[in-house]
């Protein structure tokens, strides 16, 4: 995991015994201010805030708090959930010596003189602790990181998304590895979680479309890329696409599915266009729709006959790949979806195909397995086109008409999981085949993480709950596909 460097197990063991634990990971000192990142966890009462005081003068200090999820802490230390554990970044005013600082959570004091943490000089490192919320965290730090003498104005403390908290509460009742996980999920949890999600995704969603440059009149292909969290991928992709003359005939559509990033995103996209000159279209969603909803919105705005659903963290390995993919697509009989070979940055396999597979850790479920994942591409690569059970949603070429005919991605997969295998099942049900073109090789730069099995947190539970949704819809069809 990304924070593994900070996990000193022995140090943590002592924290585990305590009713309330507070851990500081990083400290950044600027004139007149201290920025800290860390986490709080409570065994009994919910923990929601921290107060800070100067231990030598006993005075309370001005502070601004930014909170985010620490699924890794919840998972590894077994806290009840987000209500009892959170990650934080705090900017504290008016204290020069961190050794005097005392934190207080639920009435329990934590003198910082007794804490071990890393002193850093870059806000990026502190903000990096917030994971997906890193960009927001950086904004928060910068907003509060005013020169001494000035007053910090904004109270940028960000509350957690209430709907997500509701979902987390529901998930708290499930035990991931219990024999009866599927039955308990079916006995109400799935319905309740989906009803929260349905309510959220069916809110009015006025969409803003911004076009940079002149898009091709009659594009051969529309590429749809949803953006969530990290919008800097746009810069990397457009820099790369602009170096490929085939893109003269391609309509590139970015769908912003993260309303909190709207301003930064629009500013960056303008600069990206002015710098690299490749025209593209932005579809800005007012609501966070999740992966399925964002893609559906993108396809609705696509003008080409063929659509390529592409993840933002995919980078081509060479120019001409869209042309190659289209050529293969046109050469195949009865093709429904065409995927590509996806590699990690070290040239090991991320995706050559997907298939359903059982996993003894999750009884009753069919998981999406990536054969050969992590193996050197040189060792396992094949040439030409392979017919496959499933292909990943990170890169899917299909006809827009078929996508619409089968209803696109199912938005009931909360936040996003399995909508790709679900779409493959729909396409198979309509009598079409699924292929991967091994001659089109792209990089897929997923961030580092442990496998699913080792993590017991709400995100994993949600993934498995989504899997139950897939099972409810497709159990017999999956068994048929596996048998073939």
């Amino acid at each position, binding site marked *: 995991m*990304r*924070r*593994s*460097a900070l996990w000193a197990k022995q140090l943590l063991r002592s924290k585990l015994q305590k009713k309330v634990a507070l851990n500081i990971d990083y400290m950044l000192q600027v004139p007149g201010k201290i920025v800290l990142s860390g986490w709080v966890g409570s065994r009994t009462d919910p923990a929601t805030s921290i107060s800070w005081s100067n231990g030598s003068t006993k005075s309370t200090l001005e502070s601004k708090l930014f909170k985010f999820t620490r699924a890794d802490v919840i998972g590894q230390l077994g806290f009840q959930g987000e209500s009892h554990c959170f990650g934080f970044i705090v900017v504290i005013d008016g204290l020069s010596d961190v050794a005097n600082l005392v934190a207080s959570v639920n009435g329990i004091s934590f003198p910082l003189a007794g804490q071990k943490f890393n002193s850093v*000089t870059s806000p*990026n*490192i502190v903000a*990096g*602790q917030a994971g997906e919320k890193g960009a927001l965290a950086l904004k928060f730090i910068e907003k509060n990181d005013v020169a001494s003498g000035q007053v910090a104005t904004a109270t940028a403390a960000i509350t957690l998304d209430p709907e997500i908290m509701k979902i987390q509460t529901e998930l708290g009742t499930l035990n991931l590895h219990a024999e009866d996980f599927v039955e308990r999920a079916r006995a109400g949890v799935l319905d309740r979680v989906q009803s929260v999600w349905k309510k959220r995704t069916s809110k009015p969603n006025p969409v803003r479309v911004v076009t940079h440059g002149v898009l091709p009149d009659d594009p051969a292909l529309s590429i749809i890329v949803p953006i969530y969290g990290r919008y*800097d*991928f746009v*810069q*990397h992709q457009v*820099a*790369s696409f602009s*170096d490929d003359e085939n893109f003269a005939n391609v309509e590139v559509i970015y769908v912003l599915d993260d309303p909190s990033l709207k301003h930064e995103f629009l*500013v*960056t996209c303008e*600069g*990206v266009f*002015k*710098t*690299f*000159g490749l025209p593209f279209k932005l579809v800005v969603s007012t609501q966070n729709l999740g992966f399925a909803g964002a893609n559906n919105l993108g396809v609705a705005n696509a003008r080409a006959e063929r659509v390529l659903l592409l993840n933002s*963290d995919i*980078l081509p390995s060479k120019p001409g790949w869209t042309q190659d993919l289209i050529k293969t697509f046109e050469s195949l009989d009865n093709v429904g979806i065409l995927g590509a070979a996806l590699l*990690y*940055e*070290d040239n090991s396999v991320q995706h050559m195909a997907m298939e359903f597979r059982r996993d003894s850790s999750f009884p009753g479920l069919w998981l999406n397995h990536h054969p050969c994942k992590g193996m050197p591409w040189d060792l396992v690569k094949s040439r030409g086109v392979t017919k496959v059970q499933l292909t990943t949603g990170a890169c899917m070429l299909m006809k827009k008409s078929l996508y619409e005919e089968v209803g696109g991605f199912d938005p009931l997969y909360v936040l996003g999981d399995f909508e790709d295998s679900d779409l493959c099942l729909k396409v198979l049900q309509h009598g079409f085949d699924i292929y991967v073109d091994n001659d089109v090789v792209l*990089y897929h*730069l*997923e*961030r*580092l993480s442990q496998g699913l099995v080792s993590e017991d947190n709400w995100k994993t539970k949600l993934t498995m709950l989504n899997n139950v949704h897939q099972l409810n819809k497709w159990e017999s069809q999956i068994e048929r596909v596996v048998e073939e």
Partner: protein
Amino acid sequence: MSRILVVSHGHPDFNKGGAEVAAYNLFKELRRQGHDAYFLARTELLPHGGAAFSQRNDPREILFHTTMDDGFLFSSLKTKHLWGDLRDLLLKIKPDVVHFHHYFQIGIEAIEIVRRTLPQARIVLTLHEYLAICHNNGLMYKTNGKLCYQYSPRDCNNCFPEKSPGDFFLREKYLKNIFKNVDHFVSPSLFLKNRYVDWGISEKDISVIENGQPQLEAIISTDKCAEADDQRKIKLAFFGQVNPFKGIDVLLGAISSLSKKYRERLVVEIHGANFDSQRGEYQKKIKRLLRKTRGVVTFCGSYESHELPGLLSATDWVVIPSIWWENSPMVIQEAFSARVPIITSDIGGMAEKINDEVDGLHFRADKHQGLAEVIVRVIEDSTLRGKLSDNIAPPLTIAECLNQHFEIYGVNYHAIQNQEASEIA
């Protein structure tokens, strides 16, 4: 006549780093020879009313008031400074050659903007350190204190856990994609060139050209130093920035390990800038070592470049104890101009430019014992300095340096000049 725009990440009026000085020297030499040249230097000074540019010294020296918005990618595209202001300026100057001495602080996209604005312009980039290869300030020095030999996204992630291997891969691809616009690269050392060749730039696209030395007042080597005098004190001097990679602690450690008999024969001067802006722990460490070597070592603070000939003329040996690779430290050329031999770490650009037992002496980098042994040797062998000093070859002059650049600026450069000259005639 071709018009040349020299771009630097700083103006030596404000920043006296090696790269800024090298860029400016080249520009001044172009002007001295009557060529049509402009100098564009990035500055952090506040501009007039939000202007992107201002004038410095004369109308051919332009300051660019800008900064990067992403220090990881050296990117600047969220403001219009590059795709708006720089583009407008390029259309006014219309240079035939744009010679970048840096993209740091300016924004790497400046190169893209030059290519898109002036498709015919020849773009030359001088690589002054390992910035594109290494996120650790371009040092190729790991955050755990070890020298780094090769870029690898996975190893970079070990140095900076908050960035994934994928992030480093994207950074590499982004920088290389923009480097495609560069017609030719210049590296002041073969060592640095080879690091970029390892990283993926074609061997034939990088020329090695040493930074040229402006013609200073003839520096008179104090011959009395060379005279063998068995009991005279020997003066060692350090010149340059003070930071943890410059190995001042190695030098001080070596001095403090010497026995009294040798210490009494030594005078050591540290002429170093920016000590006060270093981290507290480092300052403490250096101060503690300075206390231990009191009576031998004097910390003299910063110096102006015009003072250097005088300081060097009273120096027996220059010491360059850097623990990182370096590229082509200016002090080497400066010391050689004054015919002062150098005691240096045996790595990177230093080992390349200073020949062991010829015009200097090597010791094992980051090992104060090794340096102490070399110092004992120069104390005991009073003829060594004279021998090595005699072997020092005169450094490349700025005029010679510029001549080598003309070949890179374009094959037609001289032809055009000659043609115009004949037209005038």
